[in-house]
């Protein structure tokens, strides 16, 4: 099994962060993982994206031509990456600021008002984690327990309050 995941949004929306969380989650569960940032001058301002591959066997090609899953946090990312999800795949969109009017009927599009839901938690910058929670039931290689471990490993030790807040957002996205 292999999950190929594309993550995209504005710089500052925490795209790289949820990529790292997913990568750690896979690694801490003993999976093969790979995190690939887009890098270069486009990193400052504009859109940011990264891709994550999580697999139960060795990852040879880390190049994602068509993804199994995508999380898009803003409109340009939705427009850019909608065609890059393979038929039967799942795309989670932050519908607080993304119009999912341009549709594909061969993939599942989950529209989550992640910005609004994050605001209810008191911090709009948690929209990324809400979307991660919404995608979680669809992923084959990681689950909530592994994400909890990953958040703990990445932010937990230094800032325990951030650990709770991030996981609250993930659970909200999961509908729990």
């Amino acid at each position, binding site marked *: 099994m292999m999950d190929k995941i594309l993550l995209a949004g504005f710089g500052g929306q925490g795209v790289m962060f949820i990529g790292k969380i997913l*990568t*750690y989650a896979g690694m801490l569960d003993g999976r093969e993982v*790979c995190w*690939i940032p887009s890098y*270069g001058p486009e990193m400052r301002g504009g859109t940011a994206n990264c891709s994550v591959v999580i697999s139960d066997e060795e990852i040879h090609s*880390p190049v994602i031509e068509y993804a199994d899953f995508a999380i898009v946090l803003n409109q340009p990312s939705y427009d850019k990456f909608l065609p890059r999800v393979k038929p039967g795949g799942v795309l989670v969109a932050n519908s607080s600021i993304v119009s999912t009017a341009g549709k594909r009927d061969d993939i599942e599009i989950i529209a989550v008002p992640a910005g609004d839901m994050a605001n209810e938690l008191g911090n709009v910058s948690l929209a990324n984690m809400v979307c991660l929670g919404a995608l979680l039931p669809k992923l084959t290689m990681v689950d909530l327990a592994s994400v909890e471990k990953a958040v703990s490993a990445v932010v937990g030790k230094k800032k325990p309050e951030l650990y709770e807040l991030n996981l609250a957002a993930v659970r909200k996205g999961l509908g729990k």
Partner: protein
Amino acid sequence: MSKELMKGNEAIGEAAIRAGCKLFFGYPITPSTEIVEYLSKHLPKAGGTVLQGEDEVASINMCYGAATTGARVMTASSSPGFSLKQEGMSYLAAAELPVVVVNVNRTGPGLGGLGPSQADYFQCTKGGGHGGYRQIVLAPSKGQELYDFTMEAFDLADKYRTPVVILSDGFLGQMMEPVELKKRPKADLPAKDWVVGGCKGRAKRKVASYSLTNEIGEVNNLHWEAKFAEMKDSLQRWEAFHAEDAEYLIVGYGTCGRIAKSAVLKARRQGIKVGLIRPITLWPFPEEAFANLDGVKGILTVELNFGQMVEDVKLAVECRTPVYFHNRLGGMLPSENEILRKLGQVFDLAVEV
């Protein structure tokens, strides 16, 4: 042993520290900057020094000076910066100084772009500087190899008294993968009985590359020629992936090598006998991998350049089977499906992608 999630460039830095590197001289350039960044943070704690030179020329010559004292020394750069180091590389080869030099290949020519490329293959393997020298070139394809090969590069440099190049690319440098931080393996290395560190109580030594007369020049060159021949005989290394019964061989190194593995597996699932030769030493080029081509109907070389390693493949194959070429340029990467389509096209095979 537990694994750490790190960028490829960070893996190089950590491996250097654990290999006993004590001095790093460099000038930052994307996409290699995380190497100097990582070392700046961690090498001083390990008793080493990181010094940013005023430019690449200064940095490589600082490596020359430091290596003459017997310390383990490294520098790292990316294509345009690596070009600036070439005169120094030639001097290192002539003075036979062990230095590890990382080139995180970005696109070119000129200032180029920041994406991954393999267009520095000629420059690294044929002698980017003057004078006809050879140097060991290692081509990692994943985080763990960036770590392992960097560590080994220091031993190879000491064993053969030569500069060793780690040829990475922007993709490998920026990608994060789990890396097992292995301990430095024990290596049986010759004593550094040539270093210049003060000659009180012993005969004076000299480390220099100048040949005062043509007669001396010929003696020196015969010595280098013999050394290069010995390295060529003893160091060739490659990975053969499903190559044993292959009717079609892909040849690719680094990033292309690992992508090609996915193409091989996909072809095999369709009953097409495809294999891969992934050169690990680019110099010496693994000619021995092509010694037996019985049953091989053709070869497809995949590179991120206009066609460089394919020349070495053709020299090794000696026209025994046709050699084709596929590339992507300017920072773009081929997908496994693209490689498979090309295989189908050149060898007239029905492939499903």
